[in-house]
């Protein structure tokens, strides 16, 4: 048992203040926002899988 998994990587919990003087790259700030990811992660399959699929089913002609 040699290391705490919380310490996997330099981005997490690094105590060196100098690192935070650098501007945070835009992509990192987007990825660091869990609620933006939550929105994307729900919207993408809702539109591409459910809404698209349901629209196709609704568009099937009803047998006479």
């Amino acid at each position, binding site marked *: 048992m*040699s290391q705490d*998994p919380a310490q996997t990587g330099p981005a*997490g919990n*690094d105590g060196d203040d100098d690192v935070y003087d650098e501007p945070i790259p835009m992509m990192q700030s987007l990825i660091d926002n*869990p609620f933006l990811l*939550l929105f994307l992660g*729900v919207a993408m*399959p809702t539109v591409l899988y*459910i809404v698209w699929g349901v629209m196709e089913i609704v568009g099937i002609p009803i047998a006479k």
Partner: protein
Amino acid sequence: MAVNRNFRTCPSTGLVYHEPAEKLIRWNAVAGVVSLLVGGVLALLVTLTRWPAVKLLPPDWFYLALTAHGLDMLVFWIIFFEIAVLYFAASTLLKCRLATPKVAWAAFWLMIVGAIMNNIAVFKGDSSVMFTSYVPMGAHPLFYLGLILFAVGALVAVFVFFGTLVVGKAEKTYNGSVPLVTFGAITAAIIATFTIAAGAIILIPTFLWSVGLVSHIDSLMYRTVWWGFGHSSQQINVAAHVSVWYAIAAIVFGAKPMSEKVSRTAFVLYILFLQLASAHHLLADPGLTSNWKIFNTSYAMYLAVLASMVHGLTVPGAIEVAQREKGFNKGFFEWLRKAPWGNPCFSGMFISLVGFGFLGGISGVMMGTEQLNLIIHNTIYVPGHFHATVVVGTTLAFMALTYFLIPTLFRRELMFPGMAKWQPYVYGLGMSAFSVFMMGAGTLGVPRRHWDMAFSGAAMPHEFPGTAYLMMGLMAVSGLAAIVGGAMYLAVTVGSVFLGKKIQTPGFAHVPVRKGMAPPPVWGPAAVAPSGGHGTIGLGGFVAPGTFVLAMVFLVSFILYYFVNWKYLSTVWPLS
């Protein structure tokens, strides 16, 4: 309102546990293991019934057992344990208090009530509709109500997880980005949110239909929306067990990811595209266009598959780099030969990784191809595939994590360490063989779910070749080996948690949250890259050449298997 800010630091791992979170992690893990026990007993009955030479249960009992086995394993065991993983990844890894523990307990009890209600409905005997519960087959209203309550509880627990992220950020218990393992848990939580929402959209009207308030549920509409729940729930597992792989690599080897950016990007690809694969199950359904089927089953043109391959490369790659930096630097595979194969935490994780990639991953991409899917659609190949992903991949990874959690979380010494050492091999190899033989039988056309593969007594019985019966027999024998492995896991975990020797925590004291923050991490020797890169480790300019070789073996296997199936398709459906 008083807020519990009591923390405990584990003396052996340095992990910081918030008291209410610790209790919730334990109770959710225990509820998961109880579900695994019930599901495991049912697995024995199902296996012995599908063994043509034994056929243990009569048909009605077989369908009952199969229904309960599917739900207890695929829903209750996995999701209870995943909630434990979410709380661990948020509260413990971020070293912060759990948001709203009372709400988390309400969620837990809602899940318990839902799981019990659903099991009662099934064991009463009038809800043998199997895991998929396709309409117009109807189950008892309690069946649907139980699932809805469980799903609502799980959704509330997921929001407690998100709330905990907010608490950690607000109370500054961590700086910068969350750790990668927590990021993987965020991925799992996001997929869970979509999954549970899809379940609610279809199960609530189905419940109303079961009590007579809705007159009709369209079967194709049901299947389409239900699989948004049914398949995506397995994608929560993928994100969760990949996080567990990263965690175990860090725990056992002090390994850090080869590239944080690449690993995080791979998780983002999961968030965006992994859930689309639900369309796998509808490839033979009329009414949905090929455009919808191909786009969705491609995981949006294979980007989520790429993400899995990235994780499959970076986890062993990180282990290889850590091992080489410790001095195991000879040849391609000294790092792997001298890995701690007697540590069930590592061996379970590694078998999970290899089994998930080679068996579950390759077969999943093959069966997700619209044309190839025709060879194996609704055959026993399909459960062969998902036993490789969910059981070898997820369940074994969770079992491996348990061996780490028992001393640190339950504060008990591991009982039967000899048995624990062998358990991942018996379970992982037994279940891998079980999956392979299922897939072999499925390729020969043996149907899934059916009590009697020969359709004896039917107007049009089917003659299978002797090889199919051999495959089913070997499947059952391997399944029995896996069940023995599952029983070994239960003996070790239940024995350790209830009867294991207590580990005393010296200097245990309650501390306020600000003081409860751990000091900045000190990188262990294995985790520190020498200045100027990885120094002299590796071969031919590669820091992880062994992993590169393994990745090439994987790619060649993938390509061969994929094209062999195209060849096979041409023989089963000749056009001349």
